[in-house]
């Protein structure tokens, strides 16, 4: 009985955590600039769910990636339970880009490649965030 209660609580707690995480990424409107020491720009616009829907991205690990020891990208693993800053330091380390560069290469890199989405500084780092009405034009 006690065991069942504990597992029930654990399961509920697990669901709550998952929902909190889901809510968190659904509510995300900008990328948190917290890890940066002295941010110079307004945080980049990024409505996690709307963005990935509009951009037609279904694999989480396009962004939340995992590499093995040799630096090979692992196709069937993902790291959405971690933040970019957990692996990317502020400065470059070897071939691993520093945090700002990781964001820029990831975000801007895809936008340039697909010729869709923002590529100029102020299209992401907006001083005046647009009204909360879905993804704007890139």
């Amino acid at each position: 009985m006690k065991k069942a209660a504990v597992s029930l609580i654990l399961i509920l707690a697990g669901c709550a955590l998952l929902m909190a995480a889901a809510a968190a990424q659904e509510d995300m409107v900008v990328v948190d600039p917290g890890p940066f020491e002295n941010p110079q720009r307004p945080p980049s616009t990024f409505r996690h769910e709307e963005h990935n829907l509009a951009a037609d991205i279904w694999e989480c690990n396009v962004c939340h990636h995992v590499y093995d020891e040799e630096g090979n990208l692992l196709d069937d693993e993902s790291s959405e339970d971690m933040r970019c800053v957990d692996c990317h330091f502020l400065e470059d380390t070897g071939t691993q880009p520093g945090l700002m560069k990781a964001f820029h290469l990831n975000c801007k890199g895809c936008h340039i490649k697909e010729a869709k989405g923002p590529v100029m500084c102020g299209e992401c780092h907006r001083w005046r965030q647009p009204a909360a009405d879905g993804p704007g034009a890139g």
Partner: protein
Amino acid sequence: MHSVYSFVTGPMVWVAFGVFVAGCLFRLVVLLSQVSRKEPFIFSYMNLKWSLRSIGHWIVPFATVNWRRHPVLTVVTFVFHICLFLVPIFLLSHIVLVDEAWSISWAALPDGLADALTLTVIACCLFFLVRRIRSPEVKFVTYPSDYVILAIVAAPFVTGFLAYHQWFGYPVMFILHVIAGEIMLIAIPFTRLSHMLFAVFTRAYMGSEFGGVRKAKDW
């Protein structure tokens, strides 16, 4: 907008820097070959000591009679030239782009300070403009091209300032800023902006002539 962006921040950057570097080399080679053809004797009295002495005096504010005679102009001139180089070389956004392209980076000015220095450059340009219009002795030696050159220099700073603050149509201002910078680079070797290259030679020549030949100061 993506194709315009890729073009002005891709091939056009190479063209601009290519023309700038090749143009500067070309102008220097032409200068040296002309001097050696027409007035080779100049080389006979070029002298490192007198050259450095002259350059030394002219790059220090108020170290020459001419600088002292026009104190306001002197201060504006020095502040202007210092900011003119400081801002673009140590601007965060420029370093970010260079770092992304080649993984080379260096210390950046905080954006707030760069913003203030940019306004300083713009203010100095306005000062030069008003001086050209108002001061009779300057107006007398002013050609229309002088206004064009002033505009070429001011444009990257004005557009950069507006783009940074995202006033007046952001994406277009960004593109205009990049183009304005490229125009300025291309203009340097072929306009009076080439004093960036020649100032040192002019001073070395004047210094050597005054020091070695006329036994006088050129400041």
